[in-house]
């Protein structure tokens, strides 16, 4: 991973102040309380320093390979492709990572960073619990105590992730609400204990997190490039990914930002579709699109079924990519997502998490009628164990 900046490249990352873009159009920034500001600056420096350190990056790659089992396969979804009858659909199989989602790569990167910074304790927020259990696994592996915060709504939905996290030795603090509330709460906990390391789970919140998470997750897109060239001798025509905060999507997109011919499509949940229906605001540390009240006093309660994408806001880099037209964003409904879950289970023998099924909804729409050599790569960013109870409740287990 070179850290050199290429002129005019979209891959250069935000400026020193954490902004993507300039002037009025700048997205991101440090909208943080003073207590954390020095901590954040320190983190930013430590990050910049770490990624210049070859031995650090080598260590990250070592555990990516041996513990996470990267690269995750680029899987030709043969049956789905046939069924839809159009573009060739590939899944980037992040669900096969150790701990079952893309989240673990970011956890590994930041845990190594926390160790490098000599931090003694880790705090995390989580929506779907995927980040919580992945972070707990990573912290167990690297012997760091960890405390997670989750909303009660999500705790009920994805209980298995919580049991796992606890087995790894993590503690949980529950708050009313969902991911939004968990983030606000963990920022407060961090403010109360600024010596701890906040391991942010998505490409959101105050700088430097959007950049750090993007950096760690960009391995997804790098692998896609290599694998797609190997399988198909060309780049994909489109890359699709779901967005909560936007870490798996920015991870999949980033490598291709300068390859203008590759279409990048992000998919949110219907009620939390900040990029389709939101307005620019500043909350939870960042200036970005969000579903908020007109006066900026309230982040709206969203209610999408997949906890991991049920988030009122979105990472600032996505807002920027939308504004400049480099990426497109849309949304899927709970019903579409559940139907697509079933379709993928029944055609490809993959029990997916609900979140990535939002992306596959769009993949199906766009694949139809495309030529056979048109390639769509969709990030299958998590496996479905965590969602089984909810799906059973809503659709039964027989789908009849």
């Amino acid at each position, binding site marked *: 991973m070179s850290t050199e900046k290429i002129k005019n490249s979209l891959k250069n990352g935000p400026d020193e102040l954490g902004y993507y873009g300039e002037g009025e159009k700048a997205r991101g*920034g*440090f909208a943080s309380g003073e207590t954390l500001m020095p901590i954040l600056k320190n983190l930013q420096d430590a990050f910049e320093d770490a990624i210049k350190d070859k031995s650090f990056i080598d260590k990250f790659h070592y555990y990516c390979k041996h513990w996470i089992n990267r690269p995750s396969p680029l899987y030709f979804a043969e049956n789905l492709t046939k069924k839809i009858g159009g573009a060739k659909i590939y899944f980037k199989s992040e669900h096969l990572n150790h701990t079952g989602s893309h989240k673990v790569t970011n956890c590994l990167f930041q845990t190594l960073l926390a160790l490098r910074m000599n931090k003694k304790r880790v705090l995390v927020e989580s929506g779907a619990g995927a980040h919580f259990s992945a972070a707990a696994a990573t912290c167990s592996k690297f012997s760091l105590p960890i405390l997670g915060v989750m909303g009660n709504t999500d705790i009920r939905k994805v209980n298995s992730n919580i049991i796992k996290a606890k087995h790894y030795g993590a503690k949980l603090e529950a708050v009313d609400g969902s991911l939004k509330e968990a983030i606000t709460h963990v920022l*407060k906990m961090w403010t109360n204990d600024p010596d701890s390391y906040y391991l942010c789970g998505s490409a959101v919140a105050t700088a430097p997190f959007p950049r750090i998470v993007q950096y760690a997750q960009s391995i997804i897109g790098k692998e896609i490039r290599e694998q797609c060239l190997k399988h198909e001798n060309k780049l994909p025509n489109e890359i699709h990914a779901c967005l909560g905060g936007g870490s798996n999507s920015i991870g999949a997109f980033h490598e291709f930002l300068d390859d203008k011919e590759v279409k990048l499509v992000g998919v949110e949940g219907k009620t939390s579709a900040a990029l389709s229906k939101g307005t620019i605001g500043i909350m939870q540390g960042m200036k970005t699109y969000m579903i908020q009240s*007109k006066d*900026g006093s309230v*982040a709206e309660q969203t209610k999408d079924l997949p906890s991991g994408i049920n988030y009122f806001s979105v990472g600032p880099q996505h807002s920027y990519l939308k504004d400049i037209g480099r990426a497109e964003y849309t949304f899927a409904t709970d019903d579409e997502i559940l139907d697509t879950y079933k379709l993928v289970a029944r055609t490809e023998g993959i029990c997916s998490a609900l979140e990535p099924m939002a992306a596959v909804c769009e993949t199906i729409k766009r694949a139809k009628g495309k030529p056979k050599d048109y390639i769509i790569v969709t990030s299958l960013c998590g496996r479905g164990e965590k969602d089984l109870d909810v799906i059973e409740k809503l659709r039964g287990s027989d789908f009849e």
Partner: protein
Amino acid sequence: MILSERLKKIFSAQKPKTKFVAYFVGCHPTYEKSLDIIKASIDNGTSIVEIGYSTSEASAEGPIIKAAQDRVIANKSSLKDVINLAKEVRDYNKDVGIILMGYISNLFMFPIPNFIEEIKKVDIDGVLVVDAPHELKEENTLRENLKKNDIAFIKLVAPTTPNERLKKICDMGSGYIYCLNYSGTTGVKSVDLSQVKKMVEKIKNYTNLPVCSGFGVKTPQNAKEIASTGVEGVIVGTAFVDYIEKNLDDTNLSKNLGKNIKEFTNILN
């Protein structure tokens, strides 16, 4: 630079020795009661009132102030209502310092130019925005505009703030410097007096602005101890918000809270 003439006057007065700064959540528990409470606070010797406007994702509020803000949000009282409230406070008293305090979200959506225009009209003395460090573009806009309009921009410094940054912030701030007594959210920790003392000394190395210190001041005794560190003002918030939340049904709420406030202003006189 203090900027607001009124704040200048407040801090240059001999008495009270240490100014008392009271924080209230604006429109809490209702618009009317909030007005009564602030009036009672002024009547009982408060020099400056910080009136908070509410945001759902406020990141520096402990559970007590959060509950109060959630109530305000549920009542649909907005920043506009808080400005109206401030206007009535100003109408009631021309000498008290009035600071609006909250998060950048509401100001950004107002948007900032309109916000300045409104508060100028209402004769507000200063603004404090918790999540707008000088790294933030909106902070820059706000700071510039406030300055142009002679409204103070209160900046916070924290125990985590390193010296160089402290100096920078002191240079940028106006009105007074808000010194955080500990690293953390409102109302959750206790104050380590020797730490505060060191910090106040450090701040005073960098600026001539008055220093008001807040967070964790729960009792008049606390306030007196804090005053001994050399600060010009002591800020109390959570203790009063807590009192309000616990006495919502008290028909003499403002009067009783006033007595409570009186104990603080007496001890600081």
